[in-house]
């Protein structure tokens, strides 16, 4: 039997040694798996204990957000009648919807433009990712300074415009990834068949990018719903968004009402994220 010859005639160790490294079975394997998985369980424990406690404490009859006084849904009633919370919610929805529409339009155009006409422009690329990298407080004070320089009054519009700055960056990034994985020959075919730039864009480019655009829009909507720091700096005192209302509730007078509100917000966020996951999976499949 000939050995497979190595360099300079040295024998090479045969690959049959592999089975020696076979995974141990039975109890040892189970233990090893448990030890290897331990960090994962620790992380989940750390991430979900506060969530579970918060939700449990929202179904609480007592006056204290910490102390268990029996099961009750009374605080949800209080929440539903709280005008400040409802106004904050309405404000947040207006801002998030507006910022989402504006970011999606500007971001999609920018993404297509960058991919087609300025793929190597490092300046444009840097500019389009900058709002996502910048610490939010820096963007917040910059915008406050800007609004004060142009003597703009602060209100919902100033938050909406501010949220569009980072929203635009996220939509651009998401749509660009979609373009990178797309097929440019479809657009070429459309043009070869006589369609103009605009109708090619509307009938071929946009439908092809739709999953990316929807994903980007959902991303901006969720981010804007929860955004606090920039809204805190750029909202008018008469128009607090929901996160600002939550902030002042936490700072001044903690009641179980916050637990109820937190639970509602958690439920909404979880639902949106899981729905987004489903939508993107369906889009991938189609």
């Amino acid at each position, binding site marked *: 039997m000939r050995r497979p010859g190595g360099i300079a005639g040295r024998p090479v160790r045969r690959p049959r040694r592999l089975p020696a*490294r076979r995974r141990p079975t039975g109890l040892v394997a189970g233990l090893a798996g448990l030890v*290897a998985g331990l*960090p*994962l369980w*620790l*992380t989940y424990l*750390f*991430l*979900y*204990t*506060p*969530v579970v406690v*918060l939700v449990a*404490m929202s179904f609480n009859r007592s006056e204290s*957000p910490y102390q268990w006084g029996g099961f009750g849904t009374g605080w949800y009633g209080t929440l539903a009648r709280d005008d400040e919370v409802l106004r904050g919610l309405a404000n947040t929805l207006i801002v998030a919807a507006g910022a989402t529409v504006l970011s999606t*339009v500007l*971001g999609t*155009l*920018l993404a297509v433009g*960058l991919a*087609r*006409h300025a793929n190597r422009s490092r300046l*444009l690329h840097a*500019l*389009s990712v*900058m*709002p996502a990298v910048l*610490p*939010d*407080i*820096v963007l917040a*004070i*910059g*915008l406050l*300074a*800007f609004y*004060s*320089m142009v003597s703009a009054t602060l209100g919902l519009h100033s938050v909406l415009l*501010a949220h*569009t*700055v980072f929203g*635009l960056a996220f939509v651009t990034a998401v749509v660009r990834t979609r373009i990178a994985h797309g097929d440019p020959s479809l657009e070429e075919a459309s043009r070869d068949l006589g369609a*103009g*730039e*605009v109708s090619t864009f509307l009938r071929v480019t946009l439908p092809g990018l739709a999953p990316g655009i929807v994903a980007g829009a959902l991303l901006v909507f*969720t981010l804007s719903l929860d955004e*606090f*720091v920039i809204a805190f*700096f750029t909202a008018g005192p008469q128009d607090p968004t929901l996160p600002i209302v*939550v*902030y002042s509730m*936490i700072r001044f007078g*903690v009641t179980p009402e916050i637990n109820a509100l*937190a639970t509602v*917000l*958690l439920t909404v*966020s*979880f639902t*949106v*994220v899981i729905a987004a996951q489903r939508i993107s999976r369906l889009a991938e499949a189609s």
Partner: protein
Amino acid sequence: MAAGGRAGAGPVTRRLKGVSAARARVGSAARTRARLVLIGPGFSYLVVLLVLPLALVIGYTAFRRGRFGGIAYEDGVTGDNFARIADPLYAGVLTDSLRIAGITTVLALALGYPTAYAITRLTARWRTVALVLVVLPFWTNFLVRTYAWIVLLSSEGVVNRALTGIGVTDRPLRLLYTEGAVVVGLLYAYLPLMVLPLYAAIERVDRRLLDASSDLGARPARTFCSVTLPLTLPGVLTGCVFVFVPSLGNFVVPELLGGGRTVMVGNLIRDQFLTARDWPFGSVLALALMAFLVLLLMAQAWAGHRTGSRR
């Protein structure tokens, strides 16, 4: 609209470009216009609402504060704002912030790396589930996540009740309004940002390299230190930047969980802009924050380049 677009690529183009018609490729004016229509709006938006505001913040650092807030341009330029950062009070806040953000980052790495590693060892199906479970809390309201720790850590909170209940201590411990609470709050807020890039980096490591290492007689620890870790270093640095930067600039967690005892640079910036109304000094602090960001991004790019070229 469609008709207009078609006309643009047609004869009008040639007429517009008549002078350099010989050089111009067909439709180059249409291309310029498309570029303008596509890139123009987003680009202008970012120039006005991103570049200009940042330029303002940088510009403010050279001026004195106005008596009622704002900027006193008439008083001329000054370097005093930068000198103030050396004031022990403010320098102390800066070093405290760096320490707290640093501890948070190290803890996030210590917990995040094994977690990401464990996820890469799952089957494809469970991997997605595990990742979604890591990211899910990140999508919930930041204030709510911070508030949850008040419920857990306050003197009548859940943790203290449990501890007194099982007799570990007879008096409630001081958990909330400590530096430790701030670190826990920041860790809770940003841990997913550490796990994700680490997962991507570890997942990309070629398993054959690990097999080769152990075939050559390296123990698992040696394989980890000489193969896995160097290959995942860019991911480690990305994760560290993702955790360190927002931790450093955060003012909500120090305020709600630190109770005003733990002041970080974010709180200082907030106060300079909203309470003390000293915008120039607030801008200097914001610039310091950005300087750290740039340094970290450079370190990250350097490490990415190094491992990239080695492959």
